[in-house]
């Protein structure tokens, strides 16, 4: 089947275009089976998209805004590129941050700019699964692709993750409902367990919901680690620490050992709560332990469309996934020191470039207050609190809707984008290449 075809239209109607198998880049599921009906500069239908994907596709039309603002006033794009490059080049401690909602092609240019100017580069990973990234380095990750989950997973555990709200097609496309090679009856062949402090929408899809005490994920995971190894535990202490009786944890462990292919998807319920990387590490280690009994894997449920790509690109270019400082001419990695929340909250960065993210809405107050004090450049298809306060703001074309390229699904599988219509706005890639060219010129004097 052709990727794009013109649909029949009446004599008075603007012609419709159908884009088959378009890729949704709203969340980490990166569904690449969406059929888009496009009318001019507007997507009017997104077949098979979830509620989030539908909103993503139908609301990214061409807005009537300047392509570039300098100090809040409309300016030529080339002038914006010159100004942006100068801000970054003149800085003593420039920060480049964001990158999770743009193509891998743009991400690699952003890392290049960081290298040229000796910047600190960080991605939104540091405030979602950064702690998991630290845990991966500590204990490793027993993992698999979502295709394996679909075809093999007979026990699916969601821990501190609520895909019914954040990844609405997760259940139907990958983890619960599909009929797979070794789970031919789909949902009937799978057991689903949800562990959370709230009885979320996802809990309603579970065969077993375990409501744990807030801030006790670490204790609950270590209870399971002990049971996995057959260590005797005091029932009173377990119930006091986890909020659930030892017998329930023992039943869960029995179910886990009886599974043929167990999967744990985990979310920010683990990484954002007290314990952070220690929580992720406990879950990764439990997964490793389980492989003494049966096949078990785990995966973080990643949020943004190409946050996994950001991890990959920053890793392949610097050796580290996020929180990388290049000021000495070689990469240094240290979460807590070179991560953006810290660099801003401590008042260290004296200029910044924010690509496809919104720290002015999502960061802590001290970090936001410092960002508002320094000159920074922002690239985003939409107007956000971050673009509003930027010294130089570029309105860019939307990746996946206007811009081709590659994104990485949450299981590290690269997927091509199939754009629906052209945008009059430049892409992130064009702006970043322009800034890279200019900082190189400035560097040569």
């Amino acid at each position, binding site marked *: 089947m052709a990727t794009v075809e013109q649909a029949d239209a009446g004599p008075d109607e603007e012609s419709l275009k159908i884009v088959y198998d378009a890729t949704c880049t709203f969340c980490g599921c990166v569904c690449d089976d969406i059929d888009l009906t496009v009318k001019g500069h507007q997507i009017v239908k997104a077949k098979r998209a979830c509620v989030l994907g539908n909103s993503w596709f139908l609301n990214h039309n061409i807005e009537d805004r300047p392509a570039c603002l300098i100090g809040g006033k409309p300016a030529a794009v080339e002038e914006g590129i010159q100004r942006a490059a100068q801000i970054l080049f003149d800085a003593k401690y420039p920060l480049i941050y964001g990158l999770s909602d743009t193509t891998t092609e743009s991400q690699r240019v952003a890392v290049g700019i960081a290298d040229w100017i000796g910047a600190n580069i960080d991605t939104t990973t540091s405030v979602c699964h950064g*702690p998991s990234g*630290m845990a991966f380095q500590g204990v490793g990750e027993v993992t698999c692709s979502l295709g394996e989950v679909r075809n093999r997973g007979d026990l699916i555990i969601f821990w501190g993750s609520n895909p019914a709200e954040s990844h609405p097609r997760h259940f139907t496309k990958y983890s619960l409902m599909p009929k797979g090679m070794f789970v031919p009856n789909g949902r009937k062949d799978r057991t689903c367990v949800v562990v959370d402090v*709230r*009885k979320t929408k996802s809990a309603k899809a579970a065969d077993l919901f375990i409501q744990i005490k*807030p801030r006790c994920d670490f204790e609950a995971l270590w209870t399971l680690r002990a049971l996995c190894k057959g260590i005797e535990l005091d029932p009173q202490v377990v119930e006091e620490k986890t909020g659930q009786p030892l017998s329930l944890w023992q039943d869960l462990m029995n179910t886990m050992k009886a599974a043929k292919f167990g999967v744990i998807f985990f979310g920010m319920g683990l990484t954002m*709560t007290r314990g*952070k990387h220690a929580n992720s590490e406990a879950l990764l280690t439990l997964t490793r332990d389980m492989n003494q009994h049966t096949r078990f894997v785990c995966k973080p449920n990643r949020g943004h469309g190409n946050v996994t790509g950001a991890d990959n690109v920053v890793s392949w270019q610097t050796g580290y996934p996020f929180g990388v400082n290049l000021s000495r001419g070689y990469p240094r990695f240290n*979460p807590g020191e070179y991560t953006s*929340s810290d660099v801003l909250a401590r008042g260290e960065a004296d200029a910044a470039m924010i690509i496809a993210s919104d720290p002015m809405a999502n960061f802590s*107050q001290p970090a936001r207050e410092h960002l508002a004090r320094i000159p920074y450049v922002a690239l985003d298809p939409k107007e956000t609190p971050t673009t509003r306060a930027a010294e130089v703001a570029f309105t860019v074309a939307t990746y996946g809707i206007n811009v081709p390229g590659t994104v990485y699904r949450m299981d590290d599988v690269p997927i091509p984008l199939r754009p629906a219509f052209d945008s009059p706005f430049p892409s992130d890639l064009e702006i970043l290449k322009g800034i890279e060219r200019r900082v190189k010129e400035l560097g040569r004097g």
Partner: protein
Amino acid sequence: MAETFIMIPGRTSKQGCGISEGKFGETYQSETTVLQVAPQDMERLGLREGDRVRVTSEDGQIEIDIKPSKGDELPPGLLFMAYGDLSSRLMGGDTHGSGMPTSKGFDVELERLD
């Protein structure tokens, strides 16, 4: 009188749709500026939907309207709100060496504003 709760900011599908519609639009603004309280806590404290409360964490303070959480989604003692400007105002700058501020499961004081 102020009472201590545990705050769990998080993602909702309505907040996600609001991001695509635009952060200054009605969907995002309405979803990120309301605090969900367990019905049992609302009854116990004599709170009604639409009441305004002050929420104070170790690092910040906000004023926000409340609504009851759906069914038994939220156990008593926990509060929920969608990620956004207001939830970020309650977070501190310290990441304890992890890069991640404590963004879920932190203590807050809740008091009714008359």
